[in-house]
């Protein structure tokens, strides 16, 4: 097999402490980059604001799914007890909703929780097992307690010299190009 041609898909700056990373993130945002990210071993407080991230849509998704669950529970219990197979017991109403409240609650929670799990996978872009970060060994340094800023080459502002200059300006001493082999290329980091 021939050596696959490699191309630079981004530039990585590695930092040793979260405070410097946070200042650097604010600088990158001010410089106008849009396709970039910070990678950290644990969630760093205040980094969302430094990066200018919008509020996560997860709560809205969960709430919507929860109400779908509630609706499903109402249809399930009421539909089966009052319409599909009505049996009157002890003179009680067929649609005796107070007796169904536990099921309403449980299905609300279940649907919302499934939606949250689904949102984690979709919004956090999980389920993609290959990334140049893994291949280059940079991920290993991040989980081993370092902090990284990744500037993607796909960003229209990106040029290797400017990006390198920007990272150096933020006090980064460990800057590396991020290389991806073309055969695996799906333009996502």
């Amino acid at each position: 097999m021939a050596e696959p041609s490699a191309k630079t898909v981004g530039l990585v700056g590695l930092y040793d402490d979260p405070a410097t990373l946070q200042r650097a993130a604010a600088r990158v945002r001010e410089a106008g980059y849009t396709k970039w990210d910070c990678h950290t071993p644990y969630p760093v407080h205040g980094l969302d604001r430094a990066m200018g991230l919008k509020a996560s849509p997860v709560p809205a998704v969960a709430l919507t799914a929860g109400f779908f669950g509630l609706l499903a529970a109402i249809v399930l219990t009421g539909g089966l007890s009052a319409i599909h197979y009505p049996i009157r017991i002890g003179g009680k109403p067929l649609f005796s909703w107070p007796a169904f409240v536990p099921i309403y609650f449980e299905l609300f929670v279940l649907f919302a929780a499934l939606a949250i799990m689904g949102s984690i996978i979709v919004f956090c872009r999980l389920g993609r097992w290959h990334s140049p970060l893994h291949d280059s060994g940079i991920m290993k340094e991040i989980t081993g307690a370092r902090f990284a800023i990744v500037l993607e080459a796909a960003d229209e502002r990106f040029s290797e010299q400017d990006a390198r200059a920007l990272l150096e300006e933020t006090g980064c001493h460990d800057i590396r190009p991020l290389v991806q082999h073309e055969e695996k290329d799906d333009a996502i980091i």
Partner: protein
Amino acid sequence: MSANPSLLAPAALTTEEVDLRRLDRDIYGPMEAFPTYRWWAAILLTGGLAGIFVVCLAVTVLRGIGTWGNNVPVGWGWAIVNFVFWVGIGHAGTLISAILFLFRQRWRTGIARFAEAMTIFAVICAMQFPLIHTGRPWLAMFWLIPYPNDMGVYQNFRSPLEWDVFAVSTYGLVSLMFWYTGLIPDLATARDRAGHWFRKFVYGILSLGWRGSNRAWSHYEKAYLLFAGLSTPLVLSVHSIVSFDFAVSVIPGWHTTIFPPYFVAGAIFSGFAMVATLIIIMRKMFRLQHLITDNHLELMNKIIIATSMMVGYSYAMEFFTAWYSGVAYERYVFLNRALGPYAWAYWTMAICNVLVPQLLWFKKIRRTALLMYPIVILVNVGMWFERFVIVVTSLHRDFLPTSWDYFRPSLIDIGLFVGSWGIFLTLLLLFCRFLPTIAATEVKVVVAESHGSHGGQHG
């Protein structure tokens, strides 16, 4: 009135100075080394116990539940006692992971993962008993889950037993998802630390390709918070609904409104006792005393004594209500509990759950693993007996004295209960071997904060 500032200062969460790399070494180290002979000995023992479960299950299935000790007035015997016991054990895990998270209790990070794992394994054990006690467990799914069928006959959604199906299965699933969500970043660390390709492959798959991206963390933290928010009412609902199995009936001794809060307090009480019982061994086995410190034990003990008093209050209140109701049957059931043929069980329960935990008022006992250990063991015993007392003493002398009988468990009953411990402990030992027992990522946030740099809100 001015508060003493040292009382408000948070207790130290680690006894030694730990940096992030040392933390990784301590938490992931035991997973990466070859299991010690002690671990092999332990899993051989618990595996043997689980074998007893399999044998007793086979006997139950082949010969029927006539092999159990259940008799005519006591139709709910050990199966339901064990079910309520195991579901209750799980509650501490959810309390620690969800409710203490919402209250921003930092100390939960050290014990949360272990307690959550315990929750899931306890729910697995709990689910066995109602399934087996149907007699034909392979058909139970059709009886429990509403599925479209040709007969057009469906479950009775007004029955607390059907509520239970929804409550326990939702609880099991949500606990599993919550636990797995917490594991993802830690599995990614395990992946990146792995030396062997197979290890890297397995943890790589399990970590779903986690890259620690802050755009991901932003969603992740919100999702984690929501899981905690959902699990909090969920955990309170589950044992409430389990208590409805009893409270919605008309049996004297069961038909009381105090049952839901009484059951929830008891569940948290027993769950914390179980966490303490197991985590003391675990931290010793894997040398994690600097991460699961005596401060953690003391805080758990404070919750144990608080819930012990709630449970004690409920015991007293049940007697008061029986007397105050003026109902002859109610009064008789409670007198019979304390003075009748099962008085030994009642007083075992009362002494283990109310009197013994009073020793935890002493700081020395709260902070010494060796001294508190017998106490938490007795709480576990007492809480099992609480369920036994509730189920058996309310049934064994029913309305008609000619049908009164004394319930004795059969060998198969005992084997199933002992065997369920085998399943529980085997799963726990496998967990300790293959997954990070401490939520490393969450502890990192706490450690980073104590170093003065900015940590996340996650923890």
